[in-house]
């Protein structure tokens, strides 16, 4: 797959297959296109896909709108979650969950069912119930925002979760809670793609595959040991090889 932003090619031929039950990690130096890949898959209209195709559970992903992709089970954990003043987290999630249910031909949840679900899922990332009654991400600390992303992931139970630098800006405790939460949500039926700079996240979320993205291409793939090697030696040896 190839993708442009403002006429500039950012993704220059990505080939990747993610199967149910797998965890993939995508690493790579700054500016290599990691976040662009996440945005393109989610359907961000800032980017134009110029070549290639993406199949998601047998469907042509690129023909689907952003919200259709989401309702079909694609979730993006944002690197910088936006604030929506005046809209409570619980109201936001109620709409999101019920849109998804409608899409799948299910009745909306009753208030009681929804509250129970909120309680269960916020426990996954130890998110205080006070936060769910506040406006979406407004006044949340960096750590709370990231926990809130994983809480939403728990609520929406996606088939594919793409987590864009979910570990950035987290202290050690928050990192453990967020990463453990992601691991708890992982099953044989879903898949997770984590985008990260640091090996330490992968101590908790153990990947089946590690890919290195550089200048819009995957230049190397390996197993978990690749992340450890990158942590110790950096990217230079791969980049030199590639060039």
């Amino acid at each position, binding site marked *: 797959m190839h993708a442009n932003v403002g006429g500039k090619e950012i993704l220059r031929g990505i080939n990747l297959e993610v199967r149910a039950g797998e965890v993939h990690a995508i690493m790579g130096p700054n500016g290599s296109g990691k976040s662009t890949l996440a945005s393109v898959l989610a359907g961000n*209209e800032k980017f134009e896909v110029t070549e290639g195709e993406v199949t998601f559970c047998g469907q042509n992903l690129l023909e689907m709108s952003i919200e259709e992709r989401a309702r079909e089970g694609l979730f993006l954990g944002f690197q910088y979650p*936006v604030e*929506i003043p005046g809209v409570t987290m619980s109201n936001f999630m109620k709409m*999101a969950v019920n849109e*998804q249910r409608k899409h799948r031909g299910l009745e909306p949840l009753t208030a009681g069912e929804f509250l129970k679900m909120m309680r269960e899922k916020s426990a996954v990332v130890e998110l205080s119930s006070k936060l769910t009654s506040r406006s979406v991400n407004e006044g949340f600390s960096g750590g709370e925002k990231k926990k809130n992303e994983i809480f939403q992931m728990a609520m929406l139970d996606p088939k594919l979760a793409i987590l864009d630098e979910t570990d950035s800006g987290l202290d050690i405790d928050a990192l453990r809670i967020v990463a453990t939460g992601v691991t708890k949500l992982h099953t044989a039926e879903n898949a997770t793609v984590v985008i990260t700079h640091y090996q330490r996240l992968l101590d908790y979320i153990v990947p089946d595959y590690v890919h290195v993205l550089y200048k819009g291409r995957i230049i190397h793939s390996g197993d978990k040991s690749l992340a450890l090697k990158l942590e110790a030696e950096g990217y230079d040896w791969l980049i030199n090889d590639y060039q």
Partner: protein
Amino acid sequence: MEERDQIIADLGNEYKYGFTTDIETETIPRGLNEEVVRLISQKKGEPEWLTAYRLKAYRHWLTMTMPTWAHLDIPEIDYQDIIYYAAPRTKPKLNSMDEVDPELRRTFDKLGIPLEEQMALSGVAVDAVMDSVSVKTTFKEVLAEKGIIFCSISEAVRDYPELVRKYLGSVVPYADNFFTALNAAVFSDGSFCYIPKGVRCPMELSTYFRINAAGTGQFERTLIVADEGSYVSYLEGCTAPQRDENQLHAAVVEIVVLKDAEVKYSTVQNWYPGDKEGKGGIYNFVTKRGICKGDNARLSWTQVETGSAITWKYPSCILAGDNSVAEFYSVAMTNNFQQADTGTKMIHIGRNTRSRIVSKGISAGRSQNSYRGLVRVAKGAENARNYSQCDSLLIGDRCGAHTFPYMDVQNPSAVVEHEATTSKISEEQLFYCNQRGLATEDAVGLIVNGYAKEVLSKLPMEFAVEAQKLLAISLEGSVG
């Protein structure tokens, strides 16, 4: 029939309700002169003092010109081409909801308006379906027990002439402006409400009466008097879309709040805004003003404005009594080619008076939305406090938002604060909502409701829920 056809054509809009039935209206010729004013008064069987009042207002109106200071582009209005008296106005009768315009029904459903009310609002014969008469009777009994008067202004003129005479025009004199003079000369009907000393009105007034209120016409006159130590929450308007063959509306609302009394006045205005090309729509020139006449009086205005092609409206408050408190909470939304110039005036006269203004403007399409507010602190108003917050939200890049705050402070002990913000719905916010499975229109509705929450939360519960849906509906088609 010819005249009616003409009026409908004047609306510049295809009127969809099919006026096929002959409506028994008693009309007087187009145009305005002393004869017409006398005739209106006579037809309503009014006492001499009121006829004289109307005539004085009319003569004064002749000396006035339409205000041009507002940030509005107002097409010329031919006041001699208007019919000033046509009563009783009968709505076309339909036999079932199947005959109602499907688009209107869709909106009703989205608003969640009960079927019985839908029928009443769209003119379906409801006698067999809705037991509204008995509901009304029960309410009237409860109110009567407490000594509360709630009736049409015409009835009040007949049954409580001394009260009406004492307060009519006492807050908004006929000479106040062009439209108040016109209204005083030709007002058709409206509501009158009196809460006696120490009585707390046990219900939201007019909740059950809004169906009837929907047909009150173009020169509405409302007078509310809260006697010492009383309380009332008053609702006016309707979230359901309202069409009217009268293009010009010039209403007057007066509120008198005596010592230790409190009045909460909430409005939702959703008059026909014109079509997507800016054709047709109601011109709404309203003067609303209350006075905190006694010490410790409290008055609060809450308005949600989504309708009308042109809105010119500044619900105001005179804080005359010491320690009196006034509030103004407003959401004004404009879309397509709508224009709104709205805000408030807070006139501090008494000592230790406090006022608070929260205005949330939302502009979409090619609309123009202005906030205009005056805070005046008179010489004797020791320790007056005002806090104003004016926010504007822009949707798209072809609309306009303007803020015109005026301050006139003559007492050095006053503290007057003004905060203003302008924001846009960001691509990032929309992408975030889309990614969670929300369609763009739903996302915009959600973001707008979040933005307006502080004001919407001031509305009575049931009204607030409808108003939220109304904001989302009024924005349909404004994004993407």
